[in-house]
């Protein structure tokens, strides 16, 4: 039988060739890939404007092969709102860490969703401040040690992890709010579908869309990349259950 070569996987066009500054095994890279793949599949590269946060992914604009802006810490949803309102024809997305989105940027993310801004938010929940060297995030697990919770997060003093998908699903302006994980191939595939649906939400004008991705930070968790994936599945998922928190009925029919 004659055979030919089939490409099962190749680097997406929506990524540049630049080597990332992420630590080995950090799933920021995985998230980037998924977004790039989805944008390729939907043919949106030349139409998209990304908004990078302040956080480890601050240089995201060097890795995505499309127009990008860099927001102030936490303000990416406001910046995206500004862009989308004057350029509704563009596909606008933010990429934000948990410090960025859930701590300093809490007001902006809540209001972007309340307004039902037609933007897509990719939210990287790695339970830590990666960029500044491992401080407690709003999503840090109870008891987890960080440089600013050196005795383990004491919920009496430092409060409880914030569940953004749950919160944003309360908002009437939200069209698509889900939580996924990046800890193994199956979950990564599910995450990609969610990213696709989030962009579909925007393309159809169904309001605010957010995909929360449980992500690893081997460096600041102080464990190996592989152990970090185990930490996600064993420690994070129980606190941040995966699932669909809000899905506009119009999206249910889409097959991706």
């Amino acid at each position, binding site marked *: *039988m*004659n*055979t*030919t*070569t*089939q*490409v*099962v*996987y*190749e*680097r*997406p066009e929506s*990524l540049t*060739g630049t*080597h*990332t500054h*992420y*630590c*080995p*095994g*950090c*799933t*920021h*890279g*995985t998230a*980037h*890939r998924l977004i*790039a793949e989805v944008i*390729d599949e939907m043919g949106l590269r030349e139409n998209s404007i990304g908004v990078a946060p302040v956080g480890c992914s601050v240089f995201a604009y060097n890795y995505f092969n499309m127009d990008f802006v860099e927001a102030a810490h936490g303000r990416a949803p406001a910046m995206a709102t500004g862009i989308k309102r004057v350029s509704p024809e563009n596909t606008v997305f933010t990429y934000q860490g948990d410090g960025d989105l859930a701590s300093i940027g809490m007001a902006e993310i809540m209001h972007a969703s309340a307004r039902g801004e037609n933007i897509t938010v990719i939210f990287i929940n790695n339970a830590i401040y990666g960029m500044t060297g491992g401080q407690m995030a709003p999503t840090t697990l109870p008891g987890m040690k960080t440089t600013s919770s050196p005795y383990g997060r004491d919920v009496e003093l430092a409060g409880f992890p914030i569940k953004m998908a749950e919160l944003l699903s309360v908002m009437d302006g939200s069209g698509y709010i889900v939580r996924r994980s990046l800890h*193994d*191939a199956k979950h*990564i*595939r599910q995450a990609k579908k969610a990213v696709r649906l989030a962009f579909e939400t925007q393309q159809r004008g169904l309001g605010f869309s957010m995909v929360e991705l449980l992500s690893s930070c081997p460096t600041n968790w102080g464990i*190996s*990349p*592989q152990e970090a*994936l185990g930490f996600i599945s064993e420690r994070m998922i129980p606190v941040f259950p995966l699932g669909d928190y809000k899905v506009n009925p119009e999206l249910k029919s889409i097959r991706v």
Partner: protein
Amino acid sequence: MPINGWIEVDDHHCKGCGLCVEACPQDVLELNMERLTPRGYHPAQMIEETCSGCGICAVVCPDAAISVYREKPQRQAKRARR
């Protein structure tokens, strides 16, 4: 078993994190401890020829360093849309 899949690892992107090695269901990957990439990492490599071309390694690779290819019977020979 005949070869029906293979991968290529891009030295420029691979950081030797080993996630592909752990994820490969055929157990055909390993980090090459003999070699450093220009950025100073031990890159992943195929060590056996029993790759199924399943693509799982590429799905888990955070650095999009892996390309995966598969031999296909000619009937379905249309190059997959990327």
